[in-house]
C-alpha cells in the first residue's frame, strides 16, 4: 500500500475495522513512518475528544409535545387517498390494459380476413413490431399460416 492509501486507512485502523491483512500492513508501515504515527495519534485524540461530549437529557415535555403533534391532523396527500378509491383506480387501469389488446386483436382479425393474410402481414407486421398493445399471438398465427401456405401445406391440417 502507498503512504497515501495507508493514511486513508488510519481511521478504520484506529477503530479496529480493518481486516487482518490490512491491519498487519498498516502496522508494519507505522513502525517505519513517523508522520503516519503522528497522524494516527492526532486522529485518536480527536476521537477521544468527541467521545467525551456529554449525554443530553431528554426535555421533560418531550413526550407530551410528541403526542400533541401526533394527534394534530395533517394535510392529506394524494397517496393517502382512501383505500376504495385507490382500488377502483387500479381496477380501471387493469381493465384498460386487458381490453385494449383484445379490441385491437379483434379489429386486426377482421382486417386480415378482408385483405388476405399475405398483404396484411406485409403492410402491418413492420409497424406492429413497435406497438406494445398489438396482439402478438395473432400476428404469429397469421404469419405461420401464410408460411405453410407458401410451402403448399394446408394450415388447418387436412391435406
Amino acid at each position, binding site marked *: 500500500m502507498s503512504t497515501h492509501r495507508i493514511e486513508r486507512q488510519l481511521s478504520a485502523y484506529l477503530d479496529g475495522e480493518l481486516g487482518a491483512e490490512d491491519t498487519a500492513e498498516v502496522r508494519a508501515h507505522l513502525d517505519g513512518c513517523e508522520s503516519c504515527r503522528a497522524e494516527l495519534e492526532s486522529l485518536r485524540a480527536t476521537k477521544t475528544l468527541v467521545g467525551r461530549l456529554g449525554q443530553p437529557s*431528554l426535555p421533560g415535555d418531550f413526550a407530551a409535545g410528541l403526542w400533541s403533534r401526533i394527534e394534530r391532523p395533517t394535510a392529506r396527500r394524494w397517496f393517502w387517498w382512501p383505500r376504495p378509491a385507490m382500488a377502483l383506480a387500479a381496477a380501471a387501469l387493469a381493465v384498460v390494459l386487458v381490453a385494449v389488446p383484445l379490441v385491437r386483436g379483434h379489429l386486426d382479425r377482421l382486417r386480415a380476413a378482408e385483405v388476405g393474410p399475405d398483404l396484411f402481414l406485409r403492410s402491418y407486421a413492420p409497424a406492429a413490431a413497435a406497438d406494445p398493445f398489438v396482439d402478438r399471438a395473432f400476428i404469429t398465427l397469421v404469419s405461420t399460416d401464410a408460411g405453410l401456405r407458401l410451402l403448399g401445406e394446408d394450415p388447418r391440417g387436412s391435406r
Partner: protein
Amino acid sequence: MARYSRHVYAIAYRMAGNEADAKDLAQEAFIRVWRALRRIEPGAPLEGWLHRIVTNLYIDLLRRRPKVHLQSLDEPVATDSGEMQRERADPNVDVERTVLDAALDRRVQEALLDLSADLRMVVVLADVEGYAYEEIASMMGVPIGTVKSRLHRARRTMRDRLAPIRRELRQS
C-alpha cells in the same frame, strides 16, 4: 417509545446543536415512525429501522435548514419556577470518558456543526454513540466503504478544527 426517546434525542441534539431543534427533529422522527408502524410487520427488527428513519430524516432536514443556534447543556433552563440547571448523565469514572466541561463541549459541538450533515451523522454515530461501521452503514443505507471514507474525512476536519483545544488540554 420511552425506550428509544433518550437515544433518538441524544443523536438529534448532537446533529442540531440546540435543544429546540433537537426536540423538533426527534419528535418528527417519532411521528414518521408512528405513521409507518401501521404498515410494518409486527416481528420486523424495529431498532435498525427506527435508526434508518432517524438518520435519513436528520440529514434531510438539516440540509434544508442549515442555520442552527447553539445552546450549551450547562446553560440554566428557564422554567415556570425560575431558572434551573439541566440534569446530566453521570460521567464515567474513566478519565478518557470523562465528559467535557460546558465550554469545551460547546467548542467541540461547534466543530461538529461545521461538518456537512452526512459527515456529522457518521461522527455522531461512530464517536459519540459508539456504533460499528456495519451498523452505521445499515442505518444510513450506504456501503461500509462510504462510512469508512466519510468518517476519515470528518475526523481529519475535526482534527484540524480541534487542534487548539487539544493543545490546551495537553498544557493543562
